């Protein structure tokens, strides 16, 4: 459990009956909204799959489950680092916090790299977005998610730089937690995308 060590965080972070909203209320608008949009896309994928189960299964067989699983583990690990980084920054630890965010960013970059390897492998075998509806969904959904990973990586780079010094205002803590929650959301979306694209045979 993390505890608010900094004076600035005492009022908002101390455990109270009313609880503490991670980040601030606004970021949950973004998170639930974005997750709802993705759920609509996932639903559309499953609906399209119902019309051509065999074709989708054949497309799925072309994917590397190993790469998908390793990418899942990479994002889970980066989420752990980011959660640790947020906790360290709340305690005013200006050495540990940027280190944790940098490690989280490294895992995120590893995810991007592996995704590139996966795309390159598929292209090398002549598979493109137009090959089959499965691959339209595969490339569309993973590219959309990759865009989120890129934005999240930018946020983590920003957090790595910002937490080298103690955060000055309560709103800075709120923004840091919000950015962390955005990264966890990116992880969470992949957690659902992975079984949908790689495992639902």
């Amino acid at each position, binding site marked *: 459990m993390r505890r608010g060590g900094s004076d600035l965080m005492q009022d908002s972070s101390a455990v109270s009956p009313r609880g503490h909203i991670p980040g*601030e*209320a*606004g*970021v949950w*608008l*973004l998170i639930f*909204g*974005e997750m709802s*949009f993705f759920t*609509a*896309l996932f639903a*559309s994928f499953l609906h*399209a799959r119902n019309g051509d189960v065999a074709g989708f299964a054949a497309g799925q067989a072309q994917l590397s489950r190993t790469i998908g699983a390793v990418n899942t583990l990479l994002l889970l690990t980066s989420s752990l680092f980011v959660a640790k980084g947020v906790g360290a920054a709340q305690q005013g630890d200006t050495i540990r916090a940027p280190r944790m965010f940098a490690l989280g960013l490294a895992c995120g970059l590893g995810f991007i790299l592996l995704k590139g390897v996966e795309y390159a492998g598929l292209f090398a075998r002549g598979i493109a*977005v137009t090959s089959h*509806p499965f691959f*339209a*969904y595969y*490339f*569309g959904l993973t*590219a*959309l998610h990759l*865009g*989120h990973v890129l*934005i999240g990586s930018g946020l983590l780079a920003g957090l790595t730089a910002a937490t080298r010094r103690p955060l000055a205002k309560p*709103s800075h803590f709120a*923004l840091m937690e*919000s950015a962390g929650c955005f990264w966890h959301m990116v992880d969470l979306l992949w957690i659902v995308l992975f079984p949908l694209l790689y495992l639902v045979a």
Partner: protein
Amino acid sequence: MNQGPNASIGTQRLFVWLAIAGALLFAFAWIALMRFFPPPPADLPADQVAALYSAHNVRFRIGVILALIAGGFLVPLSIVISVQMARLERGIPIWAILQGLTGAIGSAFIWLPAVAWAVAAFTPERAPELTAIFHEFAWLMFITPLSLFPMQLLGIIYIAFTKEEPDNVSAFPRWLGYLTAWQLVQSFGGPMAVLFKTGIFSWNGLLPFWLPLSLFGAWYAAICWTLLRALRCQRAAD
């Protein structure tokens, strides 16, 4: 007589209402006269594309005229957003300038497609393939340039998170910052339409069209409301 920075509040309110009226007029022309809602499928054959423009040619062209009149609706809104941003910036208001300029350029991507739709409808008897080119040109220009808006949104997000006035009187409350950030995150959807002719990623699909459109509608309503609220508070404080 008031000569202070708040002297233009009346005009700013007028601009916001102009933006609201313009958006509604554009929506009316686009939905009721051009009949582009829901959008025609991206994989429509050329002869059926040509029929879209020749079937009710005059009604369509009147729709284009109204769309051209209303198409600049983003400009007055962007100006008021910029003026309100500049109030909150220190020194040269570069975020406000970025927002205003990108807003003005962004509005071109609303009325330029209307010109291309006008060209498509102008000579209904020409070869269908030629009409189809302008049809695609117009649609891709209309759907994909959501990619321009990130630059516009960035300034609004920055001001919402760094301003020092309380949220309940501000034109840029923090929740609007997050709503705007959500829009920025969503802006990948539009350009994807370039890759797909069918399915949810095509220009009439869930991702490039339905989701951004509903989010844009919500954002537009939200920022008009917060601007009018802020202007009301500034007039009361004057």
